[in-house]
C-alpha cells in the first residue's frame, strides 16, 4: 500500500469520443436555429397584419434561379470535400470556387431584389410590418450567407496558395456543415416568405 498508481490498467474497451469540431458546430447550429425560429415566428405572427401597403402579393416574386443556385452550392461543396478526402486538391479547388460562385450569385440576386423593392416598390424596413419582418428575416439569412462566403473564400485562398491537403478535409467538413445549415434555413425562409407569405 505504499503507492497505488492512479492508472490501474488501460480502459476496458477502446476509448473513442466524437470529434469536437463537429459537435461544436452542431451546438452552434442549434443556437442559430433558435434565433431563426424567433424571426420566423415573428414573420408568421405579423403575416397580413400590415396597416398599409405594399403587400407581399403585390411586390414579391419567386427567386427561383437564385434558390437553385444556393441549394446546388451545397452539392458542389459536398463534392469539394469528397475530392479533398481523396487528396484531389485540384478538383477540390474547382468545386470550392464553384460553390463560392453560386453563393455570390445568390447574394447578388438578393441585392438586386432589395434594390428593386426599395427604389421601385418603395418598401423599406420602416414602411410597414411586412417590410420590418421581411428585411430582418431575409437579411439575417443573407448575413449568414455572407459569413459563410467569407469562410469559404478564406479556404479558397489557402487552397490556391497551396496550403490545403488531405489532412484538412476534416476542417472543411466542419465548415461544410455550416454551409448546409445556411442552405437548409433558406428552404424554410423560402417556404415561409415566398410561398406561405404570398
Amino acid at each position, binding site marked *: 500500500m505504499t503507492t497505488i498508481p492512479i492508472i490501474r490498467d488501460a480502459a476496458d474497451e477502446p476509448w473513442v469520443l466524437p470529434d469536437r469540431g463537429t459537435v461544436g458546430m452542431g451546438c452552434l447550429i442549434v443556437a442559430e436555429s433558435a434565433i431563426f*425560429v424567433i424571426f420566423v415566428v415573428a414573420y408568421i405572427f405579423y403575416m397580413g397584419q400590415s396597416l398599409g401597403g405594399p403587400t407581399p402579393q403585390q411586390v414579391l416574386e419567386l427567386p427561383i434561379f437564385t434558390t437553385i443556385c444556393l441549394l446546388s452550392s451545397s452539392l458542389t461543396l459536398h463534392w469539394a470535400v469528397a475530392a479533398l478526402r481523396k487528396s484531389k486538391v485540384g478538383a477540390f479547388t474547382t468545386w470550392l470556387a464553384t460553390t463560392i460562385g453560386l453563393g455570390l450569385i445568390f447574394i447578388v440576386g438578393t441585392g438586386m431584389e432589395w434594390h428593386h423593392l426599395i427604389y421601385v416598390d418603395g418598401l423599406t424596413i420602416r414602411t410597414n410590418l411586412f417590410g420590418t419582418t421581411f428585411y430582418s428575416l431575409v437579411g439575417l439569412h443573407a448575413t449568414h450567407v455572407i459569413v459563410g462566403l467569407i469562410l469559404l473564400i478564406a479556404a479558397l485562398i489557402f487552397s490556391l496558395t497551396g496550403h490545403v491537403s488531405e489532412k484538412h478535409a476534416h476542417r472543411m467538413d466542419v465548415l461544410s456543415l455550416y454551409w448546409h445549415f445556411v442552405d437548409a434555413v433558406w428552404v424554410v425562409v423560402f417556404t415561409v416568405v415566398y410561398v406561405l407569405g404570398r
Partner: protein
Amino acid sequence: MADSMSSLPSVETIDLTSHQRPRRLVLEVLHDWVTTVDHKKIGLMYIGYALIFLVVGGVQALVMRIQLAVPHNSFVSPDVFNRLFTMHGTTMVFFMGMPILFGFANYLVPLMIGARDMAFPRLNAFSFWISALGGLLLYYSYIGGSGLYGMGSAPDVGWFAYAPLTMKAFSPGHSTDYWAISLILSGIGSIGTAINIVVTIITMRCPGMTLNRMPLLAWLNLVMASMVFIAVSPLTAAQIMLMLDRYLGSHFFDTQAGGSAVLWIHFFWIFGHPEVYILVLPAFAFMNEIIPVFSRKAIFGYPAMVAASVGIGFISMSVWAHHMFTVGMGAGANVFFVFSSMVIAVPTGIKIFNWLATIWGGKVRFASPMLFSVGFLFQFLIAGLTGIMLAAAPFDWQLNMSYFVVAHFHYVLVGGILFTIFAAFYYWYPKVTGRMMNERLARWHFWMMVIGFHMTFDFMHIPGLLGMPRRIYTYEPGRGWDVWNLIVTIGAFIQAIAIILFVINLIRSYYKGEIAGNDPWDAWTLEWSTASPPPVYNFAITPVVHSRRPLWDIKHPEDPDWNYE
C-alpha cells in the same frame, strides 16, 4: 483509511516539477491573466467578476430597501428608483448569476472529467471577455446614457423591459440601447461558453468515463449548457429586433404601426423562464457533489437524478407563459401553462427526495458546505411551494406584480441558488487556493445569512398578500405594510453583514488559511486527486476511471465501487 489517504497518488508523486515559482512583476502577472486561455484562470476571472457585480447589485438592493423602509420616504427620487430596480435585476441575472455559475463550470468540469482544458480554450477566453465588456457597457450607461453632456442615466425599463416602454418615444436617449447591447454581448458570451461546456463534456472525458459514470455536476452542466442554446438565443434575437426598432425604425414592438407588445412578452419569457432553470441546475449540481461527500454515502438514485435533470430541461421550455396569466391569453393557453408549470415540480421533487435519501442514514458532517446545503434544502422547498401557488392562474391573477412574486423568486435565487454558491465556495476553495477557509467565520456567515434571509424574504410575502405592488418607490402609511417593510429592510442589512464576513473570509483565508492538502474532505471525484491548487495541465497523466467514484476505488481497493454499479 488514514494510511490509504496518505498514500493517495497525486501529481506530486508523478510530477516532480517544483510548484514554487519565482516572484513576478505586477505587469507580468496582469499580462498572464489577460492573455490566459487556461480554463482555471478563466473560471476564476468569471467568479471574481461575478462577485464584484454581486456587491454592486447588493448595494443597489440596499438602497432600494432604505427607500422602502418607511412610508413616504424620499431617500432616492422615483427616477433613480426605477433605474435601481432595472440595474439590480439585470446585474444579478446576467452579470452575477450566469458568470458565477459559468465560472464554476469552467473551473470544475475539465477537472472532474479528467481533461486538461476546455475543448476550445480561445473561444473560452473570448466568451469571458465579451461578457465582461457587456457588463461594462451596462454600467457605462450611467455616464453615456443620455450623451456625455446630459447628466447621464441608466436604463429604467425594468429587467424584462416590456414594450412599448422601450420604444424611442418613451425611452429617449441611449440608456435602453446600452441595456440591449450589453445583453446581446453577454448572450454571445453565454452561447460561446455553453458550446464549450457541451463539447468538453461530450468529447474530452478521460478513458473509462462513460456518460453513466460521469459526475452529476458534469451531467447537470451538460443539460444547463444545452438549454442555453435554446433559451438565450431567443433573447438575442429579440434584442436585435429591439435595436432594429430603435435605430432603423422598424415596427416589431411598435403598437402604433400594428406591432405587438405581447410578442415581446412572449419572446422575453421564452428566454426568461428557462433562464431560471439555467441558473438553478448548476446549483443542483453543487448539491449533487457536496451532499454525498458530507453524508459519507454515494448519491441516492444516480439515474433518477440524471433523468430528472434532463426532464427539467425539456419541461422548462414549455412553461414560459405562466409569467403572462394577467396578459389575457385565453382559457386554453392558461390551462396548458398552469399544467406544465405544475408538472415541472415533479422532477424537482424527485431531486429533493433523492438528496434526503442520500443524507438518510449517512454519517453526516456539518462542515460549512453541508450547513449551506441543508439550508438550501429547506429554503428551496418553500420557494418551490410558493412557485406552485403562483402557477395556479387564479391565484396569480390576484398576486402577479405584487411583492409576493418578488419574495417567491428571491427565495429561489437567494435561498436556493446563492446558498448553494456559498456551499460551493467553502467546498472547492481548498482546491483552488490550497488553503482551508476559516470555519468559525463560515459559521457566523451561515447563521447571519439564514437569519437575514428569513427576515427579509419570509416577511416580504406578507405585504405582497396585503396588496403591495412591486416597483413602487414609496407607499402611504396605514395600509398594514409599514412594519413588514421595516423588518425586510433590517433583514437585508443583516444579509449584507453576512456577505461582508464571507468576503473577509475569502481574502483572509487566502493568506492565513490552514494548508488544505489535495483532498481535505475525503471526497471521491477526480479534481481531488490532483494538487491544490491544480497545476496548469491539471493531471500529469490522463486518469482512467472504472466507476462513478474513482477516488473511492483508489482509497478502497478491497471494495471498489464498480461492483455495485
